[in-house]
């Protein structure tokens, strides 16, 4: 390529001639019959959704994000069926396992050097006492003890010298023995926690909780926001003014504070309600847990305002269209016009806003669970797992890293997919 071509400066008015120079003579050749045929094919009318799907398919980032979301859904909903452990099952003898293990022979080898630390300590004290001829002072005892304990550091050296390597996945000693005897034992892929609960199953369940909360909260927001926004936009005038003032007030309420407050204060009330009877709602509270319900209440109360604003704006634009006038002339009621004519026409906005609500709900759920006011034990979530892991962070760092990573990847994937969906459904918004 000719290097003498001066590239226009950023923001310059000069046209970028490089694009023009890159065109080859072949590019100007007449189209073949095949190409013409496919061109005609392309121009066939496509439905709104097919058109959006075509645009979405071209967006590589969004497709990767969609793939990640599907993998995570499989992980969260199919995974627990495959793993034979329960999220609240204590596997005895498998406490505090790492996601890796040494084979049985290696463990025996290591034990032969380090395992009998106490015995070696006793032997060393005996030897020193015999040398001195009297009982040892506490300082001397401490010295010997320190010497013995420091020699154990050499285990790392020993492991390196003998070429002992970690094997993938966690097994307890008992499980390894059973495995040697020919039984098939399902590994603890991500290790276990301090009660011997399988970490992978807990992470799967936590992911499931986060996803369910995200999707349910987003649907709740959709329901309230779309109804409120469409009524406000359709009727206009004084109704609109009052409804939008209310939205403005709720909009400026600091949500996180109120959510924290709600989840604390509603908890005892819901618990009292749960124990007061045995009806459908009482049992529903028991199944979901009071904390989760108060989280939904908070979402229902506070997070619909953005949706309401967006839908109102759309309805305001749409309601002056001819088909609305036509419907009205035919005697359709306001409710029918909103339901059958206006809302279906802002379906793009509805889908995009709902989709982008999911990551923020997941964000909030993990935040609350991390602080200890989210889902209640023994149910688990990614946030509460991360909070638990903080206690043993130096030794068991993987317990924090894995849930944190999955949570971040999940939010990232939903964000990117939502962005892609927005570009696909509403190309005008693209920047």
């Amino acid at each position: 390529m000719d290097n003498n071509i001066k590239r226009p400066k950023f923001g310059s008015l000069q046209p970028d001639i490089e694009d023009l120079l890159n065109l080859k003579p072949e590019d100007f050749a007449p189209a073949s019959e095949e190409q013409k045929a496919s061109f005609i094919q392309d121009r066939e009318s496509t439905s709104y959704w097919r058109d959006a799907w075509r645009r979405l398919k071209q967006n590589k980032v969004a497709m990767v994000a969609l793939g990640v979301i599907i993998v995570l859904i499989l992980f969260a909903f199919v995974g627990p069926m495959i793993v034979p452990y329960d999220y609240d099952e204590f596997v005895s003898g498998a406490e505090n396992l790492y996601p890796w293990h040494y084979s049985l022979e290696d463990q025996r080898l290591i034990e032969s050097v380090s395992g009998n630390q106490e015995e070696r300590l006793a032997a060393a004290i005996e030897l020193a006492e015999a040398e001195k001829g009297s009982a040892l002072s506490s300082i001397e005892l401490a010295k010997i003890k320190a010497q013995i304990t420091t020699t154990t550091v050499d285990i790392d050296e020993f492991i390196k010298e003998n070429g002992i390597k970690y094997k993938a996945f966690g097994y307890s000693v008992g499980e390894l023995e059973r495995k040697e005897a020919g039984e098939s034992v399902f590994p603890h892929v991500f290790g276990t926690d301090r009660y011997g609960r399988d970490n992978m199953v807990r992470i799967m369940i936590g992911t499931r909780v986060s996803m369910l909360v995200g999707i349910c909260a987003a649907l709740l927001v959709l329901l309230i926001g779309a109804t409120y926004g469409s009524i406000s936009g359709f009727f206009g005038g004084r109704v609109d003014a009052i409804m939008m003032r209310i939205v403005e007030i709720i909009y400026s309420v600091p949500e996180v504070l109120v959510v924290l407050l709600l989840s604390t204060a509603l908890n005892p009330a819901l618990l009292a309600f749960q124990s007061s009877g045995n009806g459908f709602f009482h049992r529903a509270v028991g199944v979901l847990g009071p904390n989760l319900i108060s989280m939904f209440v908070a979402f229902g109360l506070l997070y619909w305002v953005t949706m309401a604003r967006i839908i109102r704006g759309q309805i305001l634009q749409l309601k002056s269209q001819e088909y609305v006038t036509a419907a009205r002339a035919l005697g359709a009621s306001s409710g029918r016009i909103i339901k059958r004519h206006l809302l279906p026409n802002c379906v793009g906005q509805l889908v995009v806003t709902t989709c982008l609500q999911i990551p923020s709900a997941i964000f909030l759920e993990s935040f609350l669970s991390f602080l200890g006011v989210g889902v209640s034990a023994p149910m688990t979530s990614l946030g509460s797992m991360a909070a638990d892991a903080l206690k043993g962070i130096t030794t068991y760092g993987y317990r924090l890293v894995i849930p944190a990573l999955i949570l971040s990847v999940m939010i990232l994937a939903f964000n990117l997919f939502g962005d892609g969906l927005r570009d696909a459904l509403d190309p005008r918004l693209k920047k």
Partner: protein
Amino acid sequence: MAKYTLKRLIMAILTLLLVACLTFLLMNSIPGSPWVSEKAPSQATLDALNAKYGLDKPLIVQLGKYLENILKGDLGVSLKMQQNRPVLDIIKEMFPVSAKIGVFALLWAILVGVPLGCLAAYNRGKWLDSLLRIICTIGVSMPSFVVASLLLTGLGGNDQSMFPTIFKASLGVKSYVLPCFALGVYPMCYISRQARSAMLDSLGQDYIKTARAKGLKNTAVIFKHALRNALIPVITYLGPQIAFVLCGGFVVESVFSVPGLGRYFVQSILNRDYPLIMGTTIFLAAFIILMNFVVDILYKVVDPRITLEEGGN
């Protein structure tokens, strides 16, 4: 200007009223009464106590009294955490620490975020832009507790090390570094994304073409014309970011054991110290609403093109 300010002020007060009423209602919805103790007091004592504290009056009268007390600066006394100490006292002691961390976090977020956003906009479509976009998207997808605890695992050490994991005021600047950094990551990425799109908008405007047509130098065009106008929308995002930093502080302070209001708020929630929870909520809500108000007014002052009465979207 005056009309707009007045309108915003009324909205702010209404919002605060809503928060106060909500807290009051929630406080009353909690089962049990403040007089429950191991030894059940007699009915006569209960009546006397209720009468003394006005709990026998109808709910609406109580609400009025509660609001009046708030206006006087009386947020009640702590029940469990620091028995009988006025909530306002506790807030006065804890808030400065949180505020300090919040201010520094926001400061670095702005000082780094805005230039990064401009850099991305200036290199639009090149690898630097893509890289920055990836980093910032990841940044806004990580909850602050993830950032904080990863920093804690990766960099934290004891008192002598560069970044102590446990906050100690006596260690000075050192112990502020990690909390401020952790708290600032999300706003930084957010601001940088906003700055990028604002800068792109600004660069496409006609006055940039005019400036170039006049033959101004590139730097002059960027800094004098594009950047100054791009900063205005960034200011609007500062309001919500202040709220975010304060609330993100709950997590970061818990992770780094900072003796700030955020951590204390969370502890009071876990301890179910209701007056403390309510008082802190109202205080923080008032602070956030006030900050939003100030930012909004500032926004209108900085950008004279915006018509005040319209509200401007």
